[in-house]
């Protein structure tokens, strides 16, 4: 019963949602209830996630085998979580203000000099300090590391080992250059507009491959959904005891 009930709920819910697509008048109300439940359950999942994160981090902090670096990282995580929640609740989100560093160049000099300038300062601790001054730059910095890794990865991966690799290399190089003005500028010297070639690769060759992938994924999703509805696929309810 412990396994049958979740499977039964999955099957019924799935069937109702499918029927709603074809017969919205008949199953409209029940589908609406299910949608509301999904949103409520998602909200509770956030609480569950926070509690889970807190328990794991606290355990790692107090366990004697944890390395000192990991311990510090976990303490920082717990403190950040608690401080953000408290400040967020006290000061609330105020989207009227922004504050950020703006790079302003001195155009009067021959070699432009940099000077930093605060654009605007506000008094809301949550929006100013937590969101724009801490979360915003940290998040952007993490994502910008991609530039370094992509440069390093392309140096090591894009080698003309065989015909397929050479084709991939050529297509990637054309698209990389075709998406920026310098590509058109350089190839313009020999009368070639590389952005047009890049657009052809993206809009024709890439689109054909993407369409095939999308159709395959769609068919795969239908198969998995049917397996879930008929109770063949049981991984979502965990391992049997």
């Amino acid at each position, binding site marked *: 019963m412990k396994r049958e009930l979740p499977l039964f709920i999955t099957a019924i819910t799935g069937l109702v949602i499918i029927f709603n*697509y074809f017969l919205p008048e008949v199953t*409209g109300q029940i589908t*609406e209830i299910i*949608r509301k439940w*999904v*949103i409520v359950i*998602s*909200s509770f999942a956030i609480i569950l996630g926070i509690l889970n994160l807190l328990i794991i981090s606290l355990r790692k902090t107090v366990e004697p085998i944890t390395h000192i670096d990991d311990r510090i990282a976990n303490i920082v995580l717990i403190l950040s979580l608690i401080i953000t929640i408290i400040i967020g609740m006290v000061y609330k*989100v105020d*989207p*009227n*203000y*922004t504050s950020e560093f703006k*790079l302003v*160049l001195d*155009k009067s000099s021959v070699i*432009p000099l*940099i000077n930093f300038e605060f654009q605007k300062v506000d008094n809301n601790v949550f*929006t100013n300090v937590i*969101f724009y001054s801490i*979360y*915003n*730059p940290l*998040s*952007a910095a*993490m*994502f910008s590391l991609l*530039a*370094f890794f*992509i*440069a*390093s990865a*392309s*140096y090591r991966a*894009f*080698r*003309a*080992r065989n015909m397929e690799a050479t084709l991939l*290399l050529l297509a990637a*190089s054309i698209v*990389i*250059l075709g*998406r*920026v*003005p*310098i*590509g*058109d*500028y*350089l190839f313009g010297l020999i009368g070639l*507009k590389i*952005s047009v070639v890049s*657009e052809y690769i*993206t*809009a024709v060759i*890439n*689109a054909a491959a*993407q*369409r095939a992938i*999308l159709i395959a994924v769609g068919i795969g999703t239908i198969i998995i959904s049917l397996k879930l509805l008929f109770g063949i696929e049981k991984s979502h309810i965990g391992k049997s005891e």
Partner: protein
Amino acid sequence: MIIIELFKKITRRTIFLTVAIFLTIGAIFSDVYWIKKINLEMLRKSITPASKQAYDFIESLPPNSVVLVSGDYGPSTRVEADPILENFLKQSFRKNFKVIAISLWPDGAQIVATKTRQVASQYNKQEDVDYVIGGYVVGAAVAIEKMGVDLKDAIPLLNKSPAPFLKNIKTAHDLNLVFCIAAGDTLQYYIRILKSRYGVNVSGGCTAVMAAEMYPYILSKQLIGLFGGLKGAADYEILESNPEPDQVSEAVKYMLTQSLIHALIIIFIIIANIVFIYDRLKYGKKR
């Protein structure tokens, strides 16, 4: 041969350092007049057809159209997504559209609200009259599905707004356009649910890495054009503002940095292949 031996000494650290130097050069010189002028001239000649298609469609909408803008991105992708959102808002307010601004990402809500208020103030538009901030909408695909049935139920903050234009809006079908700027799957949700099932016009923008995935939807006309990555943002800025070199904002300026890094990657690829071919000729395939 000395050059080949030098190339072989290139390590990951060398690459990281070179990228850092190029990024710094790009950041410093992106505001230089003649560089902006060259950038602008090159970009004007190479507007992506998908960007033009999206812009023309938005331009063809009548005044007082109601549009929903969904800024589903966080601070990590602001460089690419912010200029798209900004130019969409500029175009919308210039055309006197009524705007509903939401985000399906919790951290995107703050960004979307701030940007909408900033652009609206430039066009003397009033909150809860010309535009409404819908905040964070929880539920992603489920919320989009609900928009097709009852928009105000899906976006609860709309119930609190006294905006007159909301009186005639019951479902997403009443919207003239849904414009989604995505750093995740949400643009595909809007296409698959609102466009395919409810026939709502969907257009949008996305990060450069996602743009390739969206082309099948553009070709099947399920997605009306696309502003892909920083290039798309620069296209939008040129189409909307047609700026002079001293008037360009971030999207066009940052194309210099992107140009330099793209050129650097190509140089590294060429170096790697010179070393590879040299080694293959010298030592054979086994090495």
